[in-house]
Protein backbone atom coordinates (compact mmCIF):
# COMPACT_ATOMS: atom_id res chain seq x y z
CA UNK A 1 0.00 0.00 0.00
CA UNK A 2 2.85 2.37 0.80
CA UNK A 3 4.23 2.02 -2.71
CA UNK A 4 0.85 2.75 -4.21
CA UNK A 5 0.59 5.88 -2.11
CA UNK A 6 3.98 7.03 -3.33
CA UNK A 7 3.14 6.49 -6.96
CA UNK A 8 0.04 8.56 -6.79
CA UNK A 9 1.80 11.61 -5.45
CA UNK A 10 1.78 14.60 -7.73
CA UNK A 11 4.78 16.64 -8.72
CA UNK A 12 4.16 20.18 -7.60
CA UNK A 13 5.99 23.41 -7.96
CA UNK A 14 4.65 26.74 -6.80
CA UNK A 15 1.79 27.03 -9.16
CA UNK A 16 2.21 24.21 -11.56
CA UNK A 17 0.70 20.81 -11.10
CA UNK A 18 1.91 18.01 -13.28
CA UNK A 19 -0.15 14.91 -13.10
CA UNK A 20 0.95 11.32 -13.54
CA UNK A 21 -0.73 11.63 -16.88
CA UNK A 22 2.75 11.37 -18.37
CA UNK A 23 2.36 7.66 -17.85
CA UNK A 24 -0.80 7.86 -19.86
CA UNK A 25 1.02 9.59 -22.67
CA UNK A 26 3.52 6.84 -22.76
CA UNK A 27 0.79 4.27 -22.80
CA UNK A 28 -0.92 5.95 -25.71
CA UNK A 29 2.17 5.57 -27.84
CA UNK A 30 2.07 1.84 -27.45
CA UNK A 31 0.08 -0.22 -29.81
CA UNK A 32 -3.16 -0.75 -27.98
CA UNK A 33 -4.53 -4.22 -28.49
CA UNK A 34 -7.83 -5.01 -26.87
CA UNK A 35 -8.73 -8.43 -25.67
CA UNK A 36 -6.89 -11.71 -25.41
CA UNK A 37 -4.31 -12.76 -27.98
CA UNK A 38 -1.93 -15.63 -28.56
CA UNK A 39 1.49 -15.25 -27.06
CA UNK A 40 4.44 -17.32 -28.25
CA UNK A 41 7.38 -14.94 -27.87
CA UNK A 42 9.54 -16.94 -25.50
CA UNK A 43 13.22 -16.78 -24.74
CA UNK A 44 15.58 -19.19 -23.02
CA UNK A 45 16.12 -22.92 -23.16
CA UNK A 46 13.54 -25.60 -22.65
CA UNK A 47 10.06 -24.29 -22.13
CA UNK A 48 11.48 -20.79 -21.75
CA UNK A 49 9.90 -17.65 -20.41
CA UNK A 50 8.20 -14.69 -22.01
CA UNK A 51 10.20 -11.95 -23.67
CA UNK A 52 9.39 -8.63 -22.05
CA UNK A 53 9.27 -5.36 -23.88
CA UNK A 54 11.94 -3.83 -21.68
CA UNK A 55 12.54 -1.01 -24.16
CA UNK A 56 9.02 0.16 -23.28
CA UNK A 57 9.66 -0.23 -19.58
CA UNK A 58 7.95 -3.56 -19.16
CA UNK A 59 8.98 -5.33 -15.96
CA UNK A 60 8.06 -8.64 -14.41
CA UNK A 61 5.93 -8.20 -11.31
CA UNK A 62 5.04 -11.74 -10.35
CA UNK A 63 5.36 -15.35 -11.49
CA UNK A 64 2.80 -17.91 -10.43
CA UNK A 65 3.50 -21.50 -11.41
CA UNK A 66 0.74 -24.08 -11.49
CA UNK A 67 -2.08 -22.06 -12.99
CA UNK A 68 -4.77 -23.25 -15.37
CA UNK A 69 -6.50 -20.81 -17.70
CA UNK A 70 -10.10 -20.95 -18.88
CA UNK A 71 -11.07 -18.60 -21.69
CA UNK A 72 -14.75 -17.83 -22.06
CA UNK A 73 -16.61 -21.10 -21.93
CA UNK A 74 -13.66 -23.18 -23.08
CA UNK A 75 -12.38 -25.94 -20.86
CA UNK A 76 -9.44 -25.00 -18.65
CA UNK A 77 -5.99 -25.48 -20.11
CA UNK A 78 -3.14 -26.66 -17.94
CA UNK A 79 -0.47 -26.96 -16.78
CA UNK A 80 0.80 -23.46 -17.20
CA UNK A 81 2.61 -20.59 -15.55
CA UNK A 82 1.26 -17.11 -15.03
CA UNK A 83 3.59 -14.19 -15.66
CA UNK A 84 2.36 -10.78 -14.56
CA UNK A 85 4.23 -7.75 -15.82
CA UNK A 86 3.47 -4.11 -15.14
CA UNK A 87 1.62 -4.04 -18.46
CA UNK A 88 -0.02 -7.36 -19.08
CA UNK A 89 -0.90 -10.82 -17.90
CA UNK A 90 0.66 -13.75 -19.74
CA UNK A 91 -0.18 -17.39 -19.39
CA UNK A 92 2.33 -19.84 -20.86
CA UNK A 93 1.80 -23.53 -21.25
CA UNK A 94 4.36 -25.64 -19.37
CA UNK A 95 4.33 -28.33 -22.03
CA UNK A 96 3.90 -26.57 -25.37
CA UNK A 97 6.27 -23.73 -26.20
CA UNK A 98 3.90 -22.49 -28.89
CA UNK A 99 0.96 -22.16 -26.57
CA UNK A 100 0.29 -19.08 -24.53
CA UNK A 101 -2.02 -16.11 -24.13
CA UNK A 102 -1.58 -12.50 -23.17
CA UNK A 103 -3.93 -9.71 -22.23
CA UNK A 104 -3.09 -6.09 -21.42
CA UNK A 105 -4.23 -4.65 -18.12
CA UNK A 106 -5.82 -1.93 -20.24
CA UNK A 107 -8.25 -4.59 -21.44
CA UNK A 108 -9.11 -6.00 -18.03
CA UNK A 109 -12.36 -4.31 -17.05
CA UNK A 110 -12.97 -6.14 -13.82
CA UNK A 111 -11.27 -8.76 -11.72
CA UNK A 112 -12.43 -10.64 -8.69
CA UNK A 113 -11.85 -13.73 -6.57
CA UNK A 114 -14.44 -16.41 -7.25
CA UNK A 115 -14.77 -19.15 -4.65
CA UNK A 116 -18.31 -20.43 -5.01
CA UNK A 117 -18.18 -23.98 -6.41
CA UNK A 118 -21.71 -23.62 -7.76
CA UNK A 119 -20.73 -21.00 -10.32
CA UNK A 120 -17.32 -22.42 -11.12
CA UNK A 121 -15.91 -25.69 -9.88
CA UNK A 122 -12.53 -24.33 -8.86
CA UNK A 123 -11.65 -21.19 -6.91
CA UNK A 124 -10.23 -18.74 -9.40
CA UNK A 125 -9.44 -15.20 -10.38
CA UNK A 126 -12.37 -14.16 -12.52
CA UNK A 127 -11.79 -11.38 -15.04
CA UNK A 128 -13.93 -9.56 -17.56
CA UNK A 129 -12.10 -8.56 -20.71
CA UNK A 130 -12.84 -5.64 -22.96
CA UNK A 131 -12.68 -7.37 -26.31
CA UNK A 132 -12.03 -5.95 -29.74
CA UNK A 133 -14.97 -7.78 -31.16
CA UNK A 134 -17.19 -8.49 -28.18
CA UNK A 135 -20.29 -10.43 -29.03
CA UNK A 136 -22.73 -12.21 -26.81
CA UNK A 137 -22.66 -15.25 -29.02
CA UNK A 138 -19.21 -16.09 -27.74
CA UNK A 139 -20.96 -18.39 -25.33
CA UNK A 140 -22.02 -20.55 -28.23
CA UNK A 141 -18.36 -21.09 -28.96
CA UNK A 142 -16.71 -24.38 -29.60
CA UNK A 143 -14.63 -26.41 -27.21
CA UNK A 144 -11.75 -26.27 -29.63
CA UNK A 145 -8.47 -27.02 -27.98
CA UNK A 146 -6.71 -24.21 -29.72
CA UNK A 147 -9.03 -21.28 -30.35
CA UNK A 148 -8.14 -19.19 -33.37
CA UNK A 149 -7.42 -15.49 -33.28
CA UNK A 150 -10.91 -14.40 -34.25
CA UNK A 151 -12.38 -16.51 -31.49
CA UNK A 152 -9.93 -15.07 -28.99
CA UNK A 153 -10.88 -11.54 -29.96
CA UNK A 154 -14.48 -12.21 -28.91
CA UNK A 155 -13.72 -13.60 -25.48
CA UNK A 156 -14.89 -11.39 -22.65
CA UNK A 157 -14.22 -13.63 -19.68
CA UNK A 158 -11.05 -15.25 -18.44
CA UNK A 159 -10.55 -17.39 -15.36
CA UNK A 160 -7.18 -18.11 -13.84
CA UNK A 161 -7.19 -21.16 -11.61
CA UNK A 162 -4.12 -21.50 -9.40
CA UNK A 163 -3.35 -24.97 -8.15
CA UNK A 164 -2.94 -23.42 -4.71
CA UNK A 165 -6.13 -21.45 -3.86
CA UNK A 166 -4.23 -19.65 -1.09
CA UNK A 167 -2.59 -17.60 -3.82
CA UNK A 168 -5.86 -16.03 -4.92
CA UNK A 169 -5.75 -13.02 -2.63
CA UNK A 170 -2.14 -12.30 -3.54
CA UNK A 171 -2.96 -12.45 -7.22
CA UNK A 172 -5.99 -10.22 -6.69
CA UNK A 173 -3.85 -7.58 -4.99
CA UNK A 174 -1.20 -7.72 -7.71
CA UNK A 175 -3.90 -7.23 -10.33
CA UNK A 176 -5.15 -4.18 -8.42
CA UNK A 177 -1.67 -2.67 -8.36
CA UNK A 178 -1.13 -3.31 -12.03
CA UNK A 179 -4.45 -1.84 -13.12
CA UNK A 180 -3.45 1.31 -11.31
CA UNK A 181 -0.13 1.32 -13.17
CA UNK A 182 -2.05 1.35 -16.45
CA UNK A 183 -4.31 4.38 -16.56
CA UNK A 184 -6.35 4.97 -19.65
CA UNK A 185 -4.28 6.47 -22.51
CA UNK A 186 -5.12 10.03 -23.36
CA UNK A 187 -6.88 11.01 -26.51
CA UNK A 188 -5.66 13.94 -28.56
CA UNK A 189 -2.30 15.64 -28.70
CA UNK A 190 -3.01 18.90 -26.94
CA UNK A 191 -0.19 18.31 -24.55
CA UNK A 192 0.12 21.64 -22.82
CA UNK A 193 -3.46 21.98 -21.78
CA UNK A 194 -3.72 18.36 -20.96
CA UNK A 195 -1.39 18.22 -18.03
CA UNK A 196 0.04 21.52 -16.94
CA UNK A 197 -1.84 24.10 -15.00
CA UNK A 198 0.43 27.04 -14.42
CA UNK A 199 0.36 30.76 -14.04
CA UNK A 200 0.31 31.23 -17.77
CA UNK A 201 -2.89 29.35 -17.93
CA UNK A 202 -4.78 31.76 -15.76
CA UNK A 203 -2.94 35.00 -16.47
CA UNK A 204 -3.83 35.26 -20.11
CA UNK A 205 -6.03 38.29 -19.59
CA UNK A 206 -9.38 36.56 -19.44
CA UNK A 207 -11.22 36.29 -16.20
CA UNK A 208 -11.56 32.67 -15.28
CA UNK A 209 -15.18 31.81 -15.69
CA UNK A 210 -15.13 28.88 -13.39
CA UNK A 211 -13.40 28.85 -10.09
CA UNK A 212 -13.57 26.53 -7.17
CA UNK A 213 -13.39 28.82 -4.23
CA UNK A 214 -12.33 27.84 -0.79
CA UNK A 215 -15.82 27.67 0.61
CA UNK A 216 -16.81 25.09 -1.97
CA UNK A 217 -13.61 23.10 -1.92
CA UNK A 218 -13.42 22.65 1.80
CA UNK A 219 -16.66 20.82 2.48
CA UNK A 220 -15.77 18.32 -0.21
CA UNK A 221 -12.01 18.40 -0.12
CA UNK A 222 -11.56 17.96 3.59
CA UNK A 223 -12.62 14.34 3.41
CA UNK A 224 -10.34 12.10 5.42
CA UNK A 225 -8.50 15.16 6.57
CA UNK A 226 -6.46 15.17 3.40
CA UNK A 227 -5.41 18.78 3.17
CA UNK A 228 -3.31 18.17 0.09
CA UNK A 229 -6.42 17.35 -1.86
CA UNK A 230 -8.16 20.50 -0.84
CA UNK A 231 -5.00 22.45 -1.53
CA UNK A 232 -4.64 21.20 -5.06
CA UNK A 233 -8.28 21.85 -5.74
CA UNK A 234 -7.79 25.47 -4.89
CA UNK A 235 -5.36 25.82 -7.76
CA UNK A 236 -7.95 24.96 -10.30
CA UNK A 237 -9.25 27.65 -12.53
CA UNK A 238 -10.90 26.63 -15.72
CA UNK A 239 -11.78 28.77 -18.65
CA UNK A 240 -12.55 26.85 -21.77
CA UNK A 241 -15.17 24.80 -23.52
CA UNK A 242 -14.79 21.68 -21.52
CA UNK A 243 -17.92 22.39 -19.61
CA UNK A 244 -20.05 23.10 -22.61
CA UNK A 245 -22.51 20.43 -21.56
CA UNK A 246 -23.20 22.14 -18.29
CA UNK A 247 -26.29 23.97 -19.48
CA UNK A 248 -28.18 20.84 -20.27
CA UNK A 249 -27.26 19.46 -16.89
CA UNK A 250 -28.79 22.46 -15.25
CA UNK A 251 -31.93 21.74 -17.22
CA UNK A 252 -31.84 18.16 -16.12
CA UNK A 253 -31.68 19.27 -12.54
CA UNK A 254 -34.80 21.32 -12.90
CA UNK A 255 -36.75 18.58 -14.58
Amino acid at each position, binding site marked *: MREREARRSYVRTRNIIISPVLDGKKASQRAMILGIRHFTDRIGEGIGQPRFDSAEGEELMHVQPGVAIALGRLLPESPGTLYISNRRVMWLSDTDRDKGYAVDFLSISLHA*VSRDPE*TYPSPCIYTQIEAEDAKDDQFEGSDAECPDESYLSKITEMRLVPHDPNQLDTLFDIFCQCVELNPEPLEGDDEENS*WIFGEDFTDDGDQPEWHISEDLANPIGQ*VNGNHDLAHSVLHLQINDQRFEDAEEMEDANHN
Partner: protein
Amino acid sequence: MCFKCEFYINPENDIVQVIGSMLSCKELVGFEMLFVSYFKELVGKEVTVELKNDLAIRSILHSLDQYLNIELENIGVVDPEKYPHMLSIRNCFIRESVVRHVQLPPDGVDIDILHDATRREARGA
Protein backbone atom coordinates in the same frame (compact mmCIF):
# COMPACT_ATOMS: atom_id res chain seq x y z
CA MET B 1 -14.55 17.05 -25.05
CA CYS B 2 -13.68 14.21 -22.81
CA PHE B 3 -14.38 15.90 -19.54
CA LYS B 4 -17.96 15.69 -18.52
CA CYS B 5 -19.52 15.68 -15.14
CA GLU B 6 -23.22 15.33 -14.69
CA PHE B 7 -25.15 15.21 -11.48
CA TYR B 8 -28.71 14.11 -11.69
CA ILE B 9 -30.72 14.90 -8.65
CA ASN B 10 -34.26 13.85 -8.14
CA PRO B 11 -35.66 15.90 -5.28
CA GLU B 12 -38.45 13.46 -4.61
CA ASN B 13 -36.51 10.39 -3.69
CA ASP B 14 -33.07 11.92 -3.34
CA ILE B 15 -31.48 9.41 -5.68
CA VAL B 16 -28.39 10.90 -7.19
CA GLN B 17 -26.55 9.68 -10.21
CA VAL B 18 -23.14 10.82 -11.22
CA ILE B 19 -22.47 10.14 -14.85
CA GLY B 20 -19.10 8.63 -15.18
CA SER B 21 -17.45 9.90 -18.29
CA MET B 22 -15.37 12.17 -16.16
CA LEU B 23 -13.86 9.09 -14.67
CA SER B 24 -11.57 8.57 -17.63
CA CYS B 25 -10.29 12.10 -17.83
CA LYS B 26 -6.80 12.91 -16.69
CA GLU B 27 -6.75 16.46 -17.90
CA LEU B 28 -8.15 18.49 -15.09
CA VAL B 29 -5.99 17.46 -12.23
CA GLY B 30 -7.55 19.61 -9.59
CA PHE B 31 -11.07 18.80 -10.56
CA GLU B 32 -10.33 15.14 -10.69
CA MET B 33 -8.86 15.32 -7.23
CA LEU B 34 -12.07 16.93 -6.11
CA PHE B 35 -13.96 13.93 -7.38
CA VAL B 36 -11.57 11.46 -5.83
CA SER B 37 -11.89 13.13 -2.46
CA TYR B 38 -15.63 13.31 -2.92
CA PHE B 39 -15.91 9.63 -3.73
CA LYS B 40 -13.59 8.70 -0.90
CA GLU B 41 -16.18 10.11 1.44
CA LEU B 42 -18.50 7.37 0.23
CA VAL B 43 -16.20 4.49 1.21
CA GLY B 44 -18.14 2.05 3.34
CA LYS B 45 -21.47 3.08 1.88
CA GLU B 46 -23.62 1.16 -0.55
CA VAL B 47 -23.37 2.25 -4.16
CA THR B 48 -24.54 0.82 -7.45
CA VAL B 49 -21.89 0.77 -10.13
CA GLU B 50 -23.16 0.33 -13.65
CA LEU B 51 -20.60 -0.76 -16.22
CA LYS B 52 -20.58 0.03 -19.90
CA ASN B 53 -21.42 -3.60 -20.63
CA ASP B 54 -24.71 -3.04 -18.69
CA LEU B 55 -23.61 -5.05 -15.70
CA ALA B 56 -24.84 -3.27 -12.59
CA ILE B 57 -23.31 -4.15 -9.24
CA ARG B 58 -24.83 -3.07 -5.95
CA SER B 59 -22.23 -3.19 -3.27
CA ILE B 60 -20.29 -1.55 -0.49
CA LEU B 61 -17.65 0.80 -1.82
CA HIS B 62 -14.43 -0.63 -0.40
CA SER B 63 -11.83 1.72 -1.85
CA LEU B 64 -10.83 3.73 -4.86
CA ASP B 65 -7.59 5.11 -6.19
CA GLN B 66 -6.53 8.33 -7.85
CA TYR B 67 -7.93 7.22 -11.20
CA LEU B 68 -11.23 6.25 -9.62
CA ASN B 69 -10.64 2.60 -10.18
CA ILE B 70 -13.20 1.10 -7.83
CA GLU B 71 -12.98 -1.81 -5.42
CA LEU B 72 -16.25 -3.22 -4.13
CA GLU B 73 -17.00 -5.70 -1.38
CA ASN B 74 -20.04 -7.81 -0.50
CA ILE B 75 -21.30 -7.42 -4.00
CA GLY B 76 -24.69 -8.25 -5.38
CA VAL B 77 -25.56 -8.16 -9.05
CA VAL B 78 -28.63 -6.17 -9.89
CA ASP B 79 -29.61 -8.53 -12.69
CA PRO B 80 -28.49 -11.97 -11.48
CA GLU B 81 -30.28 -13.82 -14.25
CA LYS B 82 -28.25 -12.10 -16.90
CA TYR B 83 -24.96 -12.35 -15.02
CA PRO B 84 -25.10 -15.51 -12.92
CA HIS B 85 -21.32 -15.88 -12.90
CA MET B 86 -20.99 -12.71 -10.83
CA LEU B 87 -23.08 -14.10 -7.99
CA SER B 88 -20.27 -16.04 -6.41
CA ILE B 89 -18.02 -13.07 -6.09
CA ARG B 90 -17.63 -11.15 -2.86
CA ASN B 91 -15.05 -8.53 -3.81
CA CYS B 92 -14.16 -7.10 -7.15
CA PHE B 93 -11.99 -4.42 -8.66
CA ILE B 94 -13.31 -2.36 -11.56
CA ARG B 95 -11.28 -0.39 -14.05
CA GLU B 96 -12.37 3.24 -14.14
CA SER B 97 -12.78 3.38 -17.89
CA VAL B 98 -15.57 0.79 -17.94
CA VAL B 99 -17.74 2.57 -15.40
CA ARG B 100 -20.80 4.25 -16.85
CA HIS B 101 -22.68 5.37 -13.76
CA VAL B 102 -22.22 5.33 -10.05
CA GLN B 103 -25.44 5.55 -8.19
CA LEU B 104 -24.88 7.04 -4.78
CA PRO B 105 -26.69 6.42 -1.52
CA PRO B 106 -29.09 9.22 -0.55
CA ASP B 107 -27.49 9.62 2.87
CA GLY B 108 -24.02 9.85 1.35
CA VAL B 109 -24.77 12.90 -0.69
CA ASP B 110 -24.94 16.49 0.40
CA ILE B 111 -27.53 17.77 -2.04
CA ASP B 112 -26.76 21.39 -1.28
CA ILE B 113 -23.12 21.05 -2.19
CA LEU B 114 -23.95 19.27 -5.40
CA HIS B 115 -26.53 21.87 -6.32
CA ASP B 116 -23.98 24.56 -5.66
CA ALA B 117 -21.31 22.84 -7.76
CA THR B 118 -23.62 22.25 -10.69
CA ARG B 119 -24.92 25.81 -10.63
CA ARG B 120 -21.43 27.22 -10.66
CA GLU B 121 -20.61 24.96 -13.54
CA ALA B 122 -23.70 26.01 -15.47
CA ARG B 123 -22.91 29.68 -14.95
CA GLY B 124 -19.44 29.15 -16.36
CA ALA B 125 -20.67 27.57 -19.55
